[in-house]
């Protein structure tokens, strides 16, 4: 046995590149369906957990899937905005706690989530450093977003313009970082949170500028008690303690846009009542993320079935090809085996040599496959976050 082991090991080592390629190919085709399963299982768990933790979402009528993915994963799906009044309307029912979400802007590639402090309590988000939002223009950064961009409390981050060459578009706002959130393994880690009003400030619905009453040279005209400034008026792109008072809103706040509202019904009855109420609405919809996610996952599982069948077929083909490779290799080495037999090596020993060679490649393939599986389970959380 030891002589056969030695001979087989020497042959495999001598042809290590070919053996490694064969083992790698085998390991890959057999590990792929398992890796796929690991990735999908992890994705399912994470998607289900996030959906289950969010009882109801209200948005404008349209794609329920887009609404869910936007509200849960801060995707920019260009949802038709809800008027801010919808939030008040929901609160007036006294059936649920309502948390607004404004999800249109980004800062250095991270989504800016405009919301209220209740969101942090609802998601169980804790501060790892710094303080909570205290005034207009403040932001709190998710752990991963802060780490990737090296952001610290006391620092600043600019909101990104929607279009680089749109001079008349949204102007970047310099936001003060007041705190960094502790990691919680959800998309909240990747986001930058601001007060809802700050998102309206980024949107241009509110602004701050020099006091027109103090400098006549910047006044264009005065009519009906309103003062209109000229182009020389200095607009503020940062909220500071000194200029905070100059910031003001124009128009009716009730019509200001929000992307969605997370509804946390008081009880099962309230949940059913809200569902019924929004079912009758022509312009709004209420979705249960848990149900939407299940139907999405059902599609995913069906697709996985197809993919797994295809991969299994590939694996079977690979197995046949490997068997052929070994058969051809042994045939090419017929003279070598005949010599060993002539010298006096038993047939059993020769069979052992062949079996051991196959076993070595097989063990290497299993090892490689396990490595891939380990890698898949390591990257699964990041992969999902990246894919979404």
């Amino acid at each position, binding site marked *: 046995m*030891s002589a056969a082991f030695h001979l087989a090991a020497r042959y495999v080592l001598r042809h290590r590149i070919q053996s490694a390629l064969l083992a790698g190919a085998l390991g890959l085709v057999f590990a792929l369906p398992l890796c796929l399963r690991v990735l999908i299982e992890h994705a399912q768990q994470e998607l289900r957990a996030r959906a289950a933790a969010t009882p109801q979402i209200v948005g404008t009528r349209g794609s329920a899937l887009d609404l869910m993915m936007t509200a849960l994963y801060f995707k920019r799906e260009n949802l038709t905005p809800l008027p801010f009044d919808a939030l008040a309307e929901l609160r007036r029912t006294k059936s649920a706690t309502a948390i607004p979400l404004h999800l249109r802007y980004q800062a250095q590639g991270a989504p800016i989530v405009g919301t209220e402090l209740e969101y942090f309590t609802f998601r169980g988000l804790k501060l790892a450093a710094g303080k909570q939002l205290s005034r207009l223009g403040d932001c709190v950064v998710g752990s991963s977003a802060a780490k990737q961009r090296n952001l610290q409390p006391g620092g600043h981050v600019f909101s990104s313009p929607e279009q680089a060459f749109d001079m008349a578009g949204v102007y970047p706002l310099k936001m003060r970082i007041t705190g960094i959130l502790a990691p919680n393994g959800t998309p909240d880690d990747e986001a930058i949170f601001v007060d809802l009003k700050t998102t309206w400030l980024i949107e241009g619905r509110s602004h701050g500028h020099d006091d027109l009453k103090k400098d006549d040279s910047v006044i264009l005209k005065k009519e009906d008690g309103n003062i209109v400034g000229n182009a020389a008026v200095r607009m503020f792109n940062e909220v500071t303690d000194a200029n905070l008072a100059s910031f003001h809103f124009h128009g009716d706040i009730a019509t200001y846009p929000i992307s969605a509202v997370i509804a946390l019904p008081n009880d099962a009855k309230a949940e059913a009542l809200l569902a019924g109420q929004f079912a009758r609405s022509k312009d709004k919809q209420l979705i249960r993320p848990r149900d939407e996610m299940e139907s999405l996952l059902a599609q995913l599982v069906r697709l996985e079935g197809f993919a797994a069948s295809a991969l299994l077929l590939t694996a079977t083909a690979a197995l046949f090809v490997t068997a052929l490779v070994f058969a051809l290799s042994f045939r090419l080495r017929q003279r*070598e085996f005949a010599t060993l037999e*002539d*010298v*006096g090596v*038993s047939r059993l020993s020769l069979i052992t040599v062949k079996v051991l060679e196959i076993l070595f490649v097989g063990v290497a393939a299993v090892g490689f496959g396990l490595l891939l599986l380990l890698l898949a389970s390591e990257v699964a959380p990041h992969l999902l976050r990246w894919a979404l």
Partner: protein
Amino acid sequence: MSDLSGLNVTDLHFAYSGEGFRVQVPRLNVSGGKALALAGPSGAGKSTLLRLFTGLLTPNAGKICLGSTQIDLLNHEQRRAFRLKHIGLVFQDFALLDYLTVTENILLPHQFRGDVGTSARAKMHELTERLHIDQYVNKRVSQLSQGERQRVAVARALVHEPQFVFADEPTASLDPARGRIVVDMLLEDARQRGACLVMVTHDPNLLPMFDQTVRMEDFATA
């Protein structure tokens, strides 16, 4: 105890099935410590005779005794075990394993017998020195020249000190000087240990070195 001193062949008859070729050896004796040269033209049946003597082929009739063992009466597994223990073979094409080193190739019979000990290694060193291949012992045989490979094949045939050594043209790839060294060594080894050497050769210059010479023409072949 078996008498493993010589080769005795009586009324040997062999023919390949479906072919006209046949070989007949009425009587052939090679005593222990003696060397026999088998000479003759190509295709005369020299290699076939070696295969018969080593039990790789079974005669149609007659007896082949290696010492007290009538090899043609043994089954496949018994012949294999006998070869591994008592026979040293030098093949025309060396039949070395390219992926093994010189040491590993030489010790192969010992390895499959499970007795790679100090004495086997000492014998290997002695043989490699005498055959001038001691500087290559850790090299793979694929890195050696034809002549060096042939000498490795000779060392492998002798390392387990077999009672019977059968060599099929072991000097074919060697220059005359190296060829003579190899034949000298085979003869000296056989005489020292009282082993029986049968060697196939084309080279008439080597024939006087042997105790006995048999020309294939002496046997009835067709």
